[in-house]
């Protein structure tokens, strides 16, 4: 069953000071099934973040429509949880209060909020930091909190916009395993944007490869690797084969993007 339907969605930004309008995204159609983990892989500036922002309702498609559970998406809402590339924890709230933010907006009573936030902090391994402020946390911890904050709200779909892009390699690998572990347990529907090929394969059940700007869908690759996935998977022959294939796909696009 399809959870999220992206139908012929494109985005053109109006020209600045009479300049030509920028075509950020050509019409794309993507179907995300229930409990699916789809990664969108593309070079920088291909419009993949724009696409995700439109799913979140933070940007409006120029053409096409987006349906979540058959309902058209018009505004941002708690049914689409989002984790941003930048650190977006509220600096004036403690880690636990951050995780409970969405619940508070929903009107969940304080005791219940505390219980749910506690559970999620436990799942991302941050129980000891519940009363800390975000500035006291490392980048990886902040993104773990952001994931917990989005999931505590029980969204229908989780959107992640290069959430580990600013982290160092080791931390990034650990974060991927953590996120995958949560997905394997919760089976949330996830749409994950990245420019990292390994990350795209390791996490996904399906990788959507996009072209350089204006972005189109170049190819779709199903990742048939078994779950639960262990980090050693990244050195397996099957993984290497997929990686070689996607590297080929994305390389020509990266060359295009770099020469423009």
């Amino acid at each position, binding site marked *: 069953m399809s959870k999220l339907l992206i139908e012929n969605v494109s985005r053109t930004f109006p020209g600045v000071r009479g300049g030509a309008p920028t075509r950020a995204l050509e019409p794309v159609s993507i179907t995300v099934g229930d409990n699916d983990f789809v990664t969108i892989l593309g070079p920088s500036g291909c419009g993949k973040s724009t696409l995700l922002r439109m799913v*979140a*309702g*933070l940007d409006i498609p120029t053409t096409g429509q987006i349906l979540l559970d058959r309902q058209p998406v018009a*505004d*941002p*809402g*708690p049914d*689409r*949880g*989002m984790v*941003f590339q*930048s650190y*977006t924890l*509220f*600096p*004036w*709230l403690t880690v636990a209060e951050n995780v409970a*933010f*969405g619940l*508070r*907006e*929903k009107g969940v009573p304080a005791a219940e909020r505390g219980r749910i936030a506690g559970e999620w902090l436990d799942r991302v391994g941050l129980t000891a930091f519940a009363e800390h*402020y*975000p*500035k006291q946390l490392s980048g990886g911890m902040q993104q773990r909190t*952001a994931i917990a*904050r*989005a999931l505590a*709200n029980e969204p229908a779909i989780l*959107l992640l916009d290069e959430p580990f892009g600013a982290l160092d390699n080791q931390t990034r690998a650990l974060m991927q395993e953590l996120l995958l572990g949560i997905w394997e347990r919760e089976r949330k529907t996830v749409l994950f944007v990245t420019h990292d090929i390994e990350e795209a394969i390791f996490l996904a059940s399906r990788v959507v490869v996009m072209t350089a700007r204006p972005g189109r869908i170049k190819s779709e690759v199903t990742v048939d690797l078994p779950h639960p996935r262990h980090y050693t998977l990244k050195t397996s022959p099957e993984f290497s084969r997929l990686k070689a294939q996607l590297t080929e796909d994305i390389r020509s696009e990266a060359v295009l993007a770099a020469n423009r």
Partner: protein
Amino acid sequence: MKPLAPISNAARVALGILFFVLFFAAWGYATLGGYVSKTFLADPLTMVEEGWLLLSKHGFLADIAITIWRVVGGFVLAAIVAVPLGILMGAYKPIEAFFEPFVSFSRYLPASAFIPLLILWAGIGEMQKLLVIVIGSFFQVVLMVAISVGSVRRDLVEAALTLGARDRGILLRVLIPAAAPDIAEILRLVLGWAWTYVIVAELIGSSSGIGHMIIDSQALLATGQIIFGIIVIGVIGLISDFLFKAANHRLFPWSFP
């Protein structure tokens, strides 16, 4: 000295005190050494002596109290209206479009130039002093608060939206807490300016206050008293600044490194 290299706390305090010592030494040298006429500039010792006389014999403490009351009263009156208006202007663009041109214009009207008008309207009583301060600080606070609320990180607002916050939630639980430390800083800054306005108001039409004492002393050529008055203003400013900073640190621990 290396650029931006930190120094120890002890060195910082010692250097800060050293400046005052040198300042008073130079002042004492110029006046006590007879290089500057006593008519124009009293020496430090005379200043302290006249200051003590002011406090003990001439009820200068009452003047200080009334000046502080005026500043705080006028400033609180201005802030009670200016802060909410600034927040609304920063958050809602139509409200900003409505008020901003007028407020920007009014900001450049010098408060001191209103004093003759205010004397006509409100006499030379307390109301006139308060109004000078209100006019001097209100528009500044409104504009600066509007800018600080309007420049709250957009991605924090977007994060709140994806967590289900609606208009009210964005205003009350994102924009206001995010801008709160800035707003406190703005109030601290403008309170400093309010001190200038109150003294000017007291210089022109008043029968009490630090400014009144200073203008009286001018008639008597008591430069020691004038300087003592100015130093008292500086010390009170320093204390209020310190209190404000301490309060900000307590209220917003998350915004300080």
